[in-house]
């Protein structure tokens, strides 16, 4: 009995070689046959995606000389670019201003046209099919690049999931891709969303307007802005100095700035929102009454048992947990007993937090299975 169970246990932990190989071959054959059947035998297929392609065209126009100021026609755009080029703008060829004669095409500039694509599922395409006129600017066509995307996403999902069996090269490849892509993604987003408009936009607004953000607002004090922007520019370079092998102290300046700023705002936030507001919230009447209606229809104040219990529990909880956190006094006698109650409160809090965490984690896995089943396998 005992020998047998040990063998079984070892088998579970490190299975013998032959059954394992057999298992893998069986799994692979089953998987390939299943996937092929799913992909080729069913009319809807797998990972099928279509795109809604819209052709967009823009022409460069300027205000016709005789025309009055186009009142309220495009106030947003007019205000958006109050520079010298404001008189010229790109509009749709069907723009009302062109038809009315308030705008005219700029000679010698070709129209620009391009296509926007939106990926949709075959089921969504059926809904849209009735709304699309043949020959119009919108059409629906198969989108192999998105179907490929679904395959890539599904394989990467499976690669990561394979880690639950054991660490393996597929998982490591997916992990390496994740690290590389996300670092670059964050950097790109930080660059285009913050560094370009806020830093470069202050240092060299004309250049940024000409090449990247034509609608960047014009500052009333460009000189001062540029001068002030030298501070974060310098601090930024000093921060990047951390990458250099020498002169580590240089990066301490920007770090000191970041710590100082954080300390300043956190001090205010912590005292205001966390300390004072939380103390106020904890100071509630211990005995709770609620307004009710008496036998003769008169208003009476009724004792609210559970409300009172809730209040008492709330106050006892805050005080006992704070006592537990108060390490300047030995946790002996009455203090020790109160601290013990505090621990119970904390344990209940953590138990509840665990329950909520479980729900969160399960949801994430659920969504990955949903993706595999619906988007990829199209079950």
């Amino acid at each position: 009995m005992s020998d047998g169970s040990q063998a079984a246990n070892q088998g579970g932990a490190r299975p013998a070689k032959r059954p394992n190989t057999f298992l893998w071959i069986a799994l692979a054959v089953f998987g390939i046959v299943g996937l092929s059947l799913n992909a080729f035998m069913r009319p809807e297929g797998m990972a099928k995606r279509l795109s809604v392609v819209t052709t967009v065209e823009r022409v460069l126009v300027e205000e016709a000389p005789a025309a009055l100021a186009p009142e309220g026609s495009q106030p947003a755009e007019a205000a958006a670019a109050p520079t010298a080029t404001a008189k010229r703008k790109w509009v749709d060829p069907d723009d009302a201003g062109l038809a009315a004669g308030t705008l005219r095409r700029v000679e010698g500039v070709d129209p620009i046209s391009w296509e926007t694509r939106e990926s949709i599922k075959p089921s969504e395409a059926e809904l849209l099919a009735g709304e699309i006129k043949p020959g119009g600017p919108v059409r629906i066509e198969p989108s192999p690049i998105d179907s490929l995307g679904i395959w890539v996403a599904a394989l990467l999902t499976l690669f990561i999931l394979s880690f639950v069996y054991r660490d393996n090269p597929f998982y490591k490849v997916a992990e390496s891709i994740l690290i590389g892509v996300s670092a670059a993604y964050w950097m790109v987003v930080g660059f285009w969303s913050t560094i370009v408009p806020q830093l470069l936009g202050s240092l060299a607004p004309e250049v940024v307007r000409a090449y990247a953000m034509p609608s960047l607002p014009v500052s009333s004090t460009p000189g001062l802005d540029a001068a002030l922007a030298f501070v974060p520019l310098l601090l930024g370079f000093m921060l990047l100095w951390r990458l250099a092998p020498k002169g580590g102290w240089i990066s301490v300046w920007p770090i000191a700035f970041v710590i100082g700023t954080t300390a300043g705002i956190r001090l205010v936030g912590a005292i205001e929102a966390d300390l004072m507001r939380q103390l106020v919230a904890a100071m509630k009447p211990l005995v709770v009454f609620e307004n009710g209606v008496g036998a003769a229809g008169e208003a009476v104040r009724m004792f609210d048992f559970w409300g009172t219990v809730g209040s008492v529990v709330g106050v006892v909880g805050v005080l006992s947990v704070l006592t537990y956190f108060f390490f300047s006094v030995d946790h002996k006698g009455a203090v020790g007993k109160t601290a013990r109650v505090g621990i119970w409160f904390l344990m209940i809090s953590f138990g509840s937090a665990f329950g909520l965490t479980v729900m969160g984690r399960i949801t994430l896995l659920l969504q990955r299975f949903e993706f595999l089943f619906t988007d990829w396998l199209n079950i």
Partner: protein
Amino acid sequence: MMRRTIPMLILASAGLLLIVAKFSPFTVSWQETVLGWFNILAAVAFVLGAGNLLAVNLEQISSRRPGWAYAAITLFAFAVTLVVGMFKVGAVPNGMHPDIHLAGAHDVPQAPFGWIYDYMLVPLTSTMFAMLAFYVASAAFRAFRAKNIEAILLLGTAFIILLSQTAAGMFLTGWIPEDSVFSFLRLDVMKRGITEHIQTAGMRAITIGIALGVAATSLRLIFGIDKSYLSKT
């Protein structure tokens, strides 16, 4: 001087300015300027992170340490994403300024950068976090043992919350009328009692404790008592 005094002065003045700005409307525009710098530095930190990654992985490849092939994959993924993102390769032109390439949108799914987001970054990050569902299950089996009263409280609460969060709560105790004396036995009522009173009290005490800690740490930093950041070189 350069290594100690100036950083301490920078820290103190930035911190004090932001505290003073809370009480004085005259310094609000200074606060905006300083926070503007702070936000730019936060974006520079993304560049620093990318630079660090580059340095670590290049070092791993050049010294042919085990796993250097994975480092090469990381670098390749990094480089491709960076190039298509920074140069907005295949970006959809901006309707108001179609003549300026860099004004276009690069994070839409039809542009390569958006494609990488949709079909690589999203599945990878979300699956990575989804894996925790497996480990939380394993932890429940191995670590949640009723060894003493504290553990029983932890476990019992988790039990009630797990049951009451799903339809099981309603199946088991939904038949108890909500206005009866025994309504406290309903799992949804128990859950509310736990989260709104006991857990709120526990977390409130933690919040107050942390607030005191943050305030103390901030003051120690601003007044130069805590200088540990100076040795971070």
